[in-house]
């Protein structure tokens, strides 16, 4: 199960993601992030309470980052827990994503 919530802080649209970002949740995650990117110039995905991310979840984040790049929006990923950070680092996603320890806002 995944829980998604959104709020605006200091000019950033923050999409908070909790639970498990797996194949079951990937469509909802991608839709939420893409929707935020579509209507906001700065989007942060807050993964502080994300417990797990699978290959399908990573693809959802990557597609959202791609959409942001196409639109010229800023897209950042923040607050990764240790296991989720490990997955991001193994994938080398830090080469194409801005990854922050804390929210940029």
């Amino acid at each position: 199960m995944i829980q998604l919530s959104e709020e605006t802080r200091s000019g950033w649209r923050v999409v908070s993601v909790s639970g498990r970002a797996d194949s079951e949740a990937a469509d909802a995650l991608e839709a939420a992030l893409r929707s935020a990117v579509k209507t906001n110039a700065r989007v942060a995905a807050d993964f502080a309470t994300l417990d797990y991310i699978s290959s399908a979840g990573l693809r959802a984040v990557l597609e959202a980052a791609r959409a942001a790049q196409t639109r010229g929006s800023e897209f950042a990923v923040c607050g990764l827990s240790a296991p989720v950070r490990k997955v991001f680092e193994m994938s080398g996603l830090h080469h194409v994503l801005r990854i922050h320890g804390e929210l940029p806002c």
Partner: protein
Amino acid sequence: MLEEVVLLAVDETSGGLRSTREFGTAYALVGAVFFDLALARKIDTGTEAIHIVDRSPTGSATLDRVLAAMDQRGDLTTVRQWIDEIFHRRDDLEGEALSSLIRLGLLRHEKSKRLWIIDVERFPLVDNRPQRDVRLRLAEAILSDTIPATRDIMLVSIAEPCGLLGYVLSEKQLAARRERIQMLCNLETISRKVAGAINALDATLHQGIPRMM
């Protein structure tokens, strides 16, 4: 993606299926099946295990056959094990992908004899635009610095270990973008694992094949 791999391997002048290394196209087809199943959300993977998440049909006879076969093999839990298993069932993959491209009107099937005895099959392109499109997508993914579509990342990560990128860009271009290619091959969990499993399978097969010289 199976059809895209075959399109990459078809020689646009002779219609023959080419491969720059032993089993190169076979590895690519096995990887393509894997990626098609992942893109169809039938399989998913974490840092280690791979599992089936949806057993409903995909609409592709090839994918459904592989999915059903893997569903029977609950003992296989890693990408490497799956790749090994699919590789040993690979015989139909090339034929099915070729048949699909012939049905779509992109290739035609020609048979001839060499030296009056040896059967030679060729698959000339009827329409070279789809092949050109696949090559352009791969070239763009490698030469640009933007984030490619997931499908193109996956295609790069199959084409690289299987020796198919040489049909897309020159050696000089590939050498200049080596870092970018490695980054793309690592970027997606399944891509990374498939590329790693193909390299490991290749090493195992070549350990088992005695040198004839």
